[in-house]
């Protein structure tokens, strides 16, 4: 079923709800909120790692949606448009907070502390099949903010490096480098978690 034909609980399609919301119809706006709140909230929560902040940002994203909905022309899917708007709201918030995003001076070369052990050490178990959703969520929460944002945008939300670079005002290489470091850090966190789990049993 396409987005436009999706029937909302109120008995109207998403496209109709968008048109009515443009005219100031509160019920249609509530229907749109109901349809998209989970995805927007999850995005905010994963990017910030904080429930209260995520709720505030969800609120801000939907308020901005309403202020800008008249400019939505249907050139992309509504969910894509809303999602991009929400990402911008979160990034703006993080900039205001002064949290590190991506350093423009970031080197493509992996730093020693970010890299794996080289040529030494025994083989360890691979992660495949050993991590579940809860473990991964927890590990993502523990990523440094800059890594977490790139990882969420690329691997979870499916944005391409060129889109991330544009949104964050960094180079594509920078985005790739941060993603690699984020995955390496996640690997480390997941392996620690796996070892702890093994030690407990």
């Amino acid at each position: 079923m396409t987005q436009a034909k999706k029937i909302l609980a109120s008995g109207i399609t998403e496209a109709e709800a968008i048109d009515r919301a443009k005219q100031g119809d509160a019920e249609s706006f509530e229907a749109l909120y109901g349809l998209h709140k989970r995805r927007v909230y999850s995005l905010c929560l994963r990017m910030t790692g904080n429930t209260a902040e995520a709720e505030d940002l969800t609120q801000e994203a939907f308020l901005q949606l309403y202020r800008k909905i008249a400019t939505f022309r249907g050139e992309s899917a509504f969910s894509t448009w809303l999602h991009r708007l929400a990402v911008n709201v979160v990034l703006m918030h993080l900039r205001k907070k002064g949290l590190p995003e991506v350093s423009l001076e970031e080197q493509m070369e992996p730093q020693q502390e970010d890299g794996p052990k080289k040529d030494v050490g025994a083989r360890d178990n691979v992660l495949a099949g050993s991590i579940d959703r809860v473990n991964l969520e927890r590990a993502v929460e523990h990523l440094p903010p800059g890594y977490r944002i790139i990882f969420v945008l690329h691997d979870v939300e499916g944005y391409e490096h060129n889109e991330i670079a544009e949104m964050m005002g960094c180079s594509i290489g920078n985005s790739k480098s941060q993603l690699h470091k984020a995955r390496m850090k996640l690997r480390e966190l997941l392996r620690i978690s796996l070892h702890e789990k093994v030690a407990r049993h």
Partner: protein
Amino acid sequence: MNCADFQRVLPDIIETGGGAEESSHLHSCAICSDLVQDLKYIAEAARMLVPMEDPSPQVWARIESSLQREGFVRPARGTVRMEPFLISGNRRGNFYGWAGLAAMALIAITMLVFNRLHSVPAIDTGTTAQTPDIFSADDKVLLNAIEQKNHSMGEMYRKKLRSVDTYIQDAKHSVKQSPGDDIARQQLMNAYQQKAAVYEMAVSYTTR
């Protein structure tokens, strides 16, 4: 190629698969092979992270309240969320009456102050000739002032005022049909409060 060389180009290998040299190292080195396998697995597992949690109901309550305060939306009749009634019986009717009057008085005072600050003639620009408007003389004065400052802002306020005026008309109609209906009275009060809020924002914009 050793592990250090391999890991230096690892982001590209993950993305593109790498060339013959990298492939050869990958097959001969268990550590690098495990590393690549793990990183690919993490990227795949990230897709498991589908949205699972909803925001608390307070989030929508705050959004709704903000939208109404800003005069962006006109609540659908009969669906508006009601505050608990603290006033009972006939006094309730009086309360709504006074609250409505207070909101109207606020609009009137706002316009009085505005007119003293700006001697703006109430000229209809004719931009809405196609739509029969229900704007009052005060509305038109305010809209003209905004449009003279910024046309697109004028259009936005025209929409807001049209929406809130329609809301007032609907609420008045409901009260007229059911004078004892608390919900209808509450909506009328909300409508006037919204209009006062729109006026406040508009005057603030023109005096910036």
